[in-house]
Structure formats: C-alpha cells, structure tokens
C-alpha cells in the first residue's frame, strides 16, 4: 500500500546490545535523572503562607463599584441580568428620593442586587454588558466555601465596594 505521507517510519526490531541487556548502565542513567530532580527548585507553593499569583484577566468575585464621589454607579438597568447566561443576577429597581444624591449617581438605583454564586459561571459577560462600568469581577477574590446554599446569594451588603477604597482605586 502506498504510504499516505512521507512521515511513516519503518519499525525495526533489533537485538539489544550487551550494554543495553546488562541493565546497569540504564539504571545509572535513571539514577542520574532522579538525582538531578533532587536538587531542582521545588514547584510547591506553601498555600496558607504563600498564594499563587493569579493571571491579570482572572475573573473572581463580583464587586459593585462607586464613582469618584462615592455614589453607587449601578442604575439597575438590568443589562447585566439579561447578558448573564446562567441567570444568576436578579435586582429590584427603585427611584432616588431627594437628599440621596450623594448615595446614588442617577435617578434610578438598585434597591436589591443579588448574585447567586452557585449559578454564576464567572464568564464576565455582566461586566461587558454594563453601560455604567458598575459591575466588575475582581482578580484577587474567590467565593469562599460555605455550609448553606442561601449563603451563596450575595446581596448588596457583600457586593458594593466599601467607601474607603474609592479614593485609592
């Protein structure tokens, strides 16, 4: 049969040489390899003391951002919820009252905003859908393990960025 490509190799079965049959040279070679590994740098990361550096584009826990004055950016437009393929985001919109201008940037705001971390697939589509640059997936936090399912529904109390960090970010 014609070979389909010129890459096929004819297998030859040949007698082993005496050095190969004697087994000991191969053992010595193997010992050399393992000894080299003995002195190599270890790949282990001692977890609680050291943490592995994450990639810049790694997507972790959500955060709802504030603007430069400390007001919440989110206007409860619902685009993130629409963009979410896992339907993990729900929210209830409310109207801003007089005197709350320092709390919410626009007239409409989210009264409740919940992300179900058990449904979320951390795809980042909410982040891309948001027209107000309000929701982001942080690159340094993961949703920690918990015992109850309802503890994985993150409300505004756990999602909104704390006030202090607005100046530094």
């Amino acid at each position, binding site marked *: 049969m014609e070979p389909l490509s010129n890459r096929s190799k004819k297998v030859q079965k040949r007698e082993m040489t005496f050095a190969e049959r004697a087994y*000991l040279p191969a*053992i010595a070679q*193997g*010992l050399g*390899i*393992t*000894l080299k*590994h*003995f002195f*190599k*740098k*270890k*790949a*282990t990361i*001692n977890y609680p003391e050291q943490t592995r550096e994450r990639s810049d584009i790694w997507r972790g826990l959500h955060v709802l951002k504030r603007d430069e004055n400390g007001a919440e950016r989110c206007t409860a437009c619902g685009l993130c919820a629409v963009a979410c393929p896992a339907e993990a985001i729900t929210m209830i919109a409310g109207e801003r009252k007089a005197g709350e201008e320092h709390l919410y940037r626009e007239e409409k705001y989210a009264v409740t905003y919940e992300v179900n971390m058990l449904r979320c697939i951390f795809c980042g589509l909410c982040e891309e859908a948001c027209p107000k640059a309000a929701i982001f997936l942080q690159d340094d936090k993961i949703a920690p393990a918990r015992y109850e399912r309802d503890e994985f529904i993150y409300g505004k109390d756990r999602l909104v960025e704390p006030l202090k960090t607005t100046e530094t970010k």
Partner: protein
Amino acid sequence: MESVDLIYKAIYILVIFGITLLIATYSTYFERKIAAFIQDRVGPNRAGPFGLLQPLADAGKLFFKEEFIPAKANKALFILGPGIAMLVATMSSAVIPFGDMLIVGGREIWLQAIEVNIGVLYVFGIVSLGVYGLMIGGWASNNKFSLLGAIRAASQNISYELAMGLSLIAILMMTGSLSLREIAEQQQGFNWNIWYQPLGFIIFLVCAFAETNRTPFDLPESEAELIGGYHTEYGSMKLGMYLFAEYINIFVASAVMATLYFGAYNFPFMVELEAWLANALDNAVTANNIVTLLGVGVMFAKIFLFIFFFMWVRWTLPRFRYDQLMKLGWQILIPLAILNVVLTGGAILLKDTLF
C-alpha cells in the same frame, strides 16, 4: 568476664538498640523527604522545624488507630507476625563493629556489642529468620492476597539469599575469616574490599535490595496487584511494626555492606593521622581515641549514604515482574556469583604462586 565488662556490654547494647530505633524512625522521615525532593515537592514540613517531628506524629497516629484482628484470622499468629519481624530485625546489629577500640582508664573498650568468630554467619542466620515474620503474618491473616504476598516474600528471600551467600564467599576467601571485626580490621586505611570485589559487591547490593523487600524487589507488598501483600489485613501499630522492621533491615543491610565492602570505620590516611596526632599531642591514648571516634563518624556516614541510596533507587526504578525477579535471581545472579568465586580463587592462587 568481669562485672565491669558486663555492665559496659549492657550499656553498649542498649545504646546500639536505641540508635537502631532512632535511625529507623528518622528513615521514615527521610524517605518521605527524599521522595518529595526527587518528585520536585517539599515533603513533610509542618510538624516542628522542617517537619522533624513528623515521625512522632506518625507514631502517635498509628498508636491511636483501631487494633483490628479479622474474625477468621489465627489470633496468636496474627499478633506474633509483626513481633517476630521486629525482634529479628533488631537482633542483627549486635555483631556489627561500629568503631575500633577506645581506651578509657586503661581499659580497652571495643565498639562492638558481641565479638563472635562467626559474625557473618550470625547476620545471615538472623536475616533469613526475618522471612518468618512476613510468612506468619501473611498466613495468619487468612486472606488470599496476604498469603500470595507471603509466598512471594518467602520464595524471593530464599532465591536471593543463595546469590548473596555465594557473593560473600569470595570475600571470605580473601579475608580468611568470618569475624566482622577481623574483616573490618583488614581493610585498614583505604584498602577496601570494593576495589577487589566490584562484581561481588554489585551482586550483594542487588540481593540486599531483594532481602529487605525494597523497590524494585518489593513484590511481597505490591499494592497494585496484591492490595498490600502480606500486611493487607494489618492496621495500627502492627502494620507500623512491619514497616518499622523494614527500615531497621535497611539500616542493618547498609551497615553490613559498609563493613564488608567499604572498609567499615576505616578511612584514608587513618594510620598516618593517628601517628601524627600521637606525636603532636604526645599522648598515644588520646590520639587513638580521637581516631576511633572519627572512625565511628565515618562508619555512620557510610551507612547513611547507603540508606540514601536505598531510597534514591526506590524513586528511580519500577517494580520487577515476578518471573523477571526469579530469572534475575536464578539465571543471572547465581551464575555470576559462582563466576566471581572462581575468579577470586584463581587470583588468590596466582598471587600465592607468583609472589
């Protein structure tokens, strides 16, 4: 024997016993450390500095585990098995000379527990008893896999003991003595037996691996096909005893190899150093003691090197297949050992007639 000598012997035996146990304990730690290092990991490092208390933690765990004895097992033999393994393993270090002679208060103190003129035979006799521990344990478990493991252990030990004994005959022909102390003394300075018996040493080394049931000859406990081999049904400290006995056996095998082939407590320029020290200090007794203690250090360094080698090989070579193991033992090692005996005999004859 004087009562003072008896007391000294008792103390010395206790010390050797303690050292044996200590080295076996820390062998478990170093085994894990070396395994980790060879596999690019860091190994145990949580218990104490560098994980040095890990053996204590392991022992604590084993002691507090459930003492389980299978319902259909032979209870007495089941308990006896690990006991025999442990007893036999600790007995064999008695005749090994760990050092030369110390002189304290005009009294000669030999750093060897028992000096018998059949030291080598004693070691071999005791080591070959070790298989009873495994055999009884595997039999008493009343488990097919345990029995298979025990049978493997027995047949393997018998096969390799033959080649081991034959490789040793060449040494005995050269030294003309069965006493380990005499063999050690004949290798003074750098006049080690390894230079005259390289082939014999390799055969002895391979057989030592098989006798101690270490990889690549750990078929009696091959977990892939026999679950755990002879110790399948064992748990808690009874399993610990079996594993511990294995480490003691490694220590003894290393000590025997260092004594027979690598000059025991001798090191290069030993005599010159002693003469120089005696001259410099103007005290022959102190010089002798310093050199002897140095020799003890050298002996233990050699032993540790061999223990490291045992572990190093474990993480390099895969396990033999059973038929390969038998073929290597009967068709290769035994003829090679006989060839070695013939060659040694020829060399001795040549030397005697020509010079």
